[in-house]
């Protein structure tokens, strides 16, 4: 079984697009539909190696999710990469301060995303 990546996005299409790219590269994919679901999946799923997370989502946005997840010392080393339409420098700084590892502005290139996940989970 390949390394497990959690994909957090309120768009089913984006979850499927990202999931398909990752599965084709041998990863196992778990999905969450918003930040709150993402927090639950991270605490309730063993061996998540990395997280790809949207920013603008209902219930809990991605930046709040990163901050919440990083409050738990168990998640200190968990790489979280934001995948979003946002390109605003202030939000990128906020993500970095919250503990995110990277920021990708949609649309993503599958090969680059896969390479990034392979590097982060090596």
């Amino acid at each position, binding site marked *: 079984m390949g390394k497990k990546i959690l994909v957090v996005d309120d*768009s089913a*299409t984006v979850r499927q*697009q990202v999931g*398909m790219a990752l599965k084709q590269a041998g990863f196992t994919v778990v999905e969450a539909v918003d930040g709150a679901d993402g927090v639950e999946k991270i605490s309730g799923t063993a061996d998540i190696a990395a997280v790809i997370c949207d920013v603008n989502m209902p219930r809990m946005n991605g930046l709040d999710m990163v901050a919440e997840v990083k409050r738990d010392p168990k998640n200190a080393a968990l790489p979280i990469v934001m995948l979003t339409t946002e390109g605003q*420098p202030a939000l990128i700084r906020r993500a970095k301060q919250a503990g995110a590892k990277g920021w990708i502005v949609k649309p993503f290139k599958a090969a680059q995303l896969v390479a990034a996940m392979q590097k982060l989970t090596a």
Partner: protein
Amino acid sequence: MEQEVSHNSETIDEIVRTACAELFDAYGLGLTERPPPKENEDHASDEDLAIAGVIGMTGDAIRGTLVLAGTSKPLEFTRSVGQVRDWVAELSNQLLGRIKNKLLQHGVEIYLSTPVTMAGRRLRIMSSGNYDSGQFLFETSAGGYICIWFDAELAEGLILEKVETEDEHTSEGDMLFF
């Protein structure tokens, strides 16, 4: 005052056109702009506008709604997985995201809502904005049409000009690691 309105309209129209072209080019689809239909005129010769993504925006300077509507051919062409109704919502989200990033270069910040989808025949909106609200019709390289409505209210006294900033601009497709 009229000059400001005209300048803002031209600036926003250019931003929307460019964002549209870039968005669909990223998914391999070419767009050719056509004149928007007149009142009571059909948008397309033999297809009704099928499905639309609707997404709101708020901000101190600009607020309103973006509607991205398409006939089936361009939506199917650009969709790789999932359902069309979810895909058109994501396209509207990505389009408004691009517009947001371009408005940021003019010192204007907007906040996006969660997109919703609607389906129907001969979809048309009633403009409520106070600028020459943008309606854009594109014929696509896959056949069919994409129609964009950018319906916005601009704050009084707003003049859209590019601003210099120390922050590095992050573009669509960029990947940053910390």
